[in-house]
């Protein structure tokens, strides 16, 4: 029996899955500044959940922003390829993927289950989870409540500033002018959806469209994007795990291909540094 691990170190959350034909165990935790330590710890937790020793893991693929900080990974693959592979497994009808993370957003075009084109925004906070985070703080609302609140809007307020910092100011001004909170929050979601949709259009959007990443867990954002697209989007059961699942599956694909060709794959040492070493 072969087991494959995917480690996705995002800017905000770290995700690990262990799977063979299906997911056996998964762990999600906040990233924080020390990727290396965290990767070890989260991997340990996942192994415990799966009841497997590390030596039994056939192949480990690391992805995400912090993928270079995973010393026990056999291979590093970009999150673009991993999200594509994850969506191909979870939602095979999807041809376009929208991934909205804490600090970046991406659009991926799929063909035959693989990424063939992509667009990314990782330099401007508007169009990412950060935009909502900053606004939520200004408004005194919990980030996880933003989505639900936005659905109560009667008339979404138009936010004209595309810069996160200025938009946060604009939001306070609108509030003081008497605009309703749900209307403002809906306006913020619309602003993100506009930016993301604008970026996505460079890919020539093809249905079905799937959403992954933290943004997909925000019902307000999902609805705002659907409004822009003009049709419903597909969301996997746990959108945060798509990248890690894709990473594990790409590992499996590589192992199978190597076996078929009789090639030996290079692997890293199956050793986890003790997470408790550094405190």
């Amino acid at each position: 029996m072969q087991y494959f691990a995917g480690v996705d170190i995002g800017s905000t959350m770290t995700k690990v899955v262990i799977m063979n034909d299906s997911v056996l165990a998964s762990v999600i935790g906040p990233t924080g500044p020390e990727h290396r330590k965290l990767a070890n710890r989260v991997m340990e937790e996942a192994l415990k959940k799966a009841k497997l020793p590390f030596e039994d893991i056939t192949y480990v693929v690391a992805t995400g922003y912090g993928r270079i900080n995973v010393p026990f990974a056999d291979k590093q693959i970009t999150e673009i390829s991993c999200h594509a592979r994850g969506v191909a497994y979870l939602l095979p009808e999807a041809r376009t993927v929208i991934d909205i993370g804490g600090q970046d957003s991406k659009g991926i075009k799929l063909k035959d289950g693989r990424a063939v084109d992509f667009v990314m925004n990782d330099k401007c906070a508007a169009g990412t989870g950060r935009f909502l985070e900053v606004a939520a703080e200004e408004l005194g609302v919990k980030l996880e409540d933003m989505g639900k609140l936005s659905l109560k809007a009667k008339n979404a307020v138009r936010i004209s500033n595309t810069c996160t910092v200025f938009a946060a100011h604009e939001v306070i001004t609108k509030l003081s002018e008497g605009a309703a909170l749900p209307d403002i929050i809906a306006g913020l979601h619309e602003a993100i959806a506009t930016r993301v949709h604008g970026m996505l259009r460079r890919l020539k959007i093809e249905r079905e469209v799937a959403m992954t990443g933290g943004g997909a867990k925000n019902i307000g954002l999902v609805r705002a994007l659907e409004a822009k697209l003009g049709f419903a989007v597909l969301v996997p059961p746990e959108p945060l795990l798509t990248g890690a699942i894709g990473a594990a599956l790409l590992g499996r694909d590589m192992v199978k291909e190597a076996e078929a060709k009789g090639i030996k794959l290079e692997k890293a040492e199956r050793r986890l540094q003790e997470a408790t070493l550094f405190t």
Partner: protein
Amino acid sequence: MPEKAVVKGLAEADRYYQDYGLRARELKKQGQKVIGYLCAFVPAELITAVGMVPFRIKGDVNEPITKADTEMETIICPLVRSCFDMALKGNYEFLDGLVVPHACDSICRTYDIWKYSLNLPYAHFINMPHGTGGPSLDFYKEVLKTFRTSLSGFAGKEISDKALAEAIKLHNQNRAKVKELYELRKSSPPLISGEELTKVLIAAMSLPVAESIEMLGDVIAEVKGRGAPSAQKQARIMVIGAQVDDVAFIKLIEDSGAWVVADDLCPGAREFFSSVDVTADPIAGLAERYLRKIKCGRTYREMEGNYQEYLEDRFGHMRRMIDDFGVDGVVLYIYKYCDPYGFEVPQIKSYIEAKGTPVLYLEDEYSMSTIGRLRTRIQAFLEMLAK
């Protein structure tokens, strides 16, 4: 008399790359005059013919732009701003003059800022037209004559047709050497890496043409002699863009698992692949090469035939290079605020993709502070090319 460098070939190129302007400073001490120029559209042949050293000004991707902002708006092409920043920071104190062509808005519309700020003994703007028709060529010949007269005035001596023809011959030899070097990239794997080649070309732009020819000859011999590299790489990449004056970006691609084997760049194939025809009036040959032979986004090529034929005229050489050099994927690398290439992105991308080669379009800011973001995109592109 100070000794010339004893280091040869790739090591010599590395030396001139790491300490850009080293040779120009030496020559200045020996009493030679150094004329700085922006952009390969300056006919350096005239500078060589008058007995001065042509020196191409470059920026520094690792140096944050600071001083330039006090005089030059930040909406200018970041490469031009970086060049100006380097000048203000004293990197080009050895310059006796500055020659600037009508390349693009970022260069043309900042000429006065350069001129008044640096206050060099000599400055001249070559008002190269945009069009390539008959009247444009005639106009350009007059513009070059004006430049020739002006440069002669500064030098205190005439530039004879004979001297100009000699200089053209040398610069053509230089170009031929570069083309010869590029041939060594065709093999699988290429005998010279993109990083090494870029270094050589950048070093060359700081040297007098005769010394550049010698250095290139040494590099070619060295590369031929040492055999193929052992590294295993997944893909052969061509980089298309306006100007790349540092190895960082090329190295990033090669460190990600690919070879950079071809380009349409400056310095690069675009600058070196076409030569000046030998003509009775050397000015005519120069005008023809710079205005018509070089296919750069700043030049407005007149449309002959239908639209498809027009695209072939403008971009066909890119397709031919993809075929000749066995290119798997193209990276279209354009700086923010670049007008000549910014407008061409959809057309170049669609032209190349229509012929079956994938294209990664990257908009960048010149400075290497963006390297992390670029790395992810390049890696993703290479992953997509594999299989």
